[in-house]
């Protein structure tokens, strides 16, 4: 039972670098989400997707891009990383009853 798998678990970036956070789910869920969690705070929705080929912005989309070419995968791309993007990133999928979260990616931008 893999569920929602995120890679990498940890990453350090330099300012201005780019990277892609990978997320894959094996539950055949149409709905997928990216959240970020800053220290001591709740989760903020970055982007979400209601199915392959369909994505939409959440609360804090600036500085990020997403794509959804398959049902299983929902990668999050950071272009020109900034210190403000230092956070823990969670991917989730949903069966419209509840969200299932991945284990998170801890990202530091220095």
């Amino acid at each position, binding site marked *: 039972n893999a569920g929602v798998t995120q890679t990498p678990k940890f990453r350090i970036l330099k300012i201005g670098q780019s990277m892609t956070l990978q997320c894959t789910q094996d539950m055949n869920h149409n709905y997928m989400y990216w959240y970020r969690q800053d220290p001591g705070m*709740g989760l903020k929705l970055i982007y*979400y997707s209601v199915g392959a080929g369909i994505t939409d912005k959440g609360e804090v989309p600036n500085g990020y891009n997403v794509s959804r070419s398959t049902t299983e995968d929902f990668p999050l791309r950071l272009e020109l990383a900034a210190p403000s993007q230092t956070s823990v990133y*969670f991917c989730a999928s949903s069966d419209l009853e*509840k*969200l*299932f979260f991945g284990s998170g990616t801890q990202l530091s931008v220095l």
Partner: protein
Amino acid sequence: ELKVEQNPLFLSMQEGKNYTIYCNYSTTSDRLYWYRQDPGKSLESLFVLLSNGAVKQEGRLMASLDTKARLSTLHITAAVHDLSATYFCAVDISRGGATNKLIFGTGTLLAVQP
């Protein structure tokens, strides 16, 4: 602006005591979720409340939803140390829960002392 506010933000309680965490939200919604997060871990789903008046219980935790008051409560009965964690409420702002688009509260850090 949509707000989801929890109080208290921090709760230190003794084992065996009862307490309630409150979640207020500022928009119309009939779906509310409670999650638990242990330090450095992901989020674990506790309750899904799908209608006004919904009440769910699991062990020492009981959650309720009043959509008219835009209020949910998480009641802890006879707390034990294992309940120490951060608890989040989250409101589904999509119409009819069509996209499960959740807005999270800031969390309540619960510390249960022996």
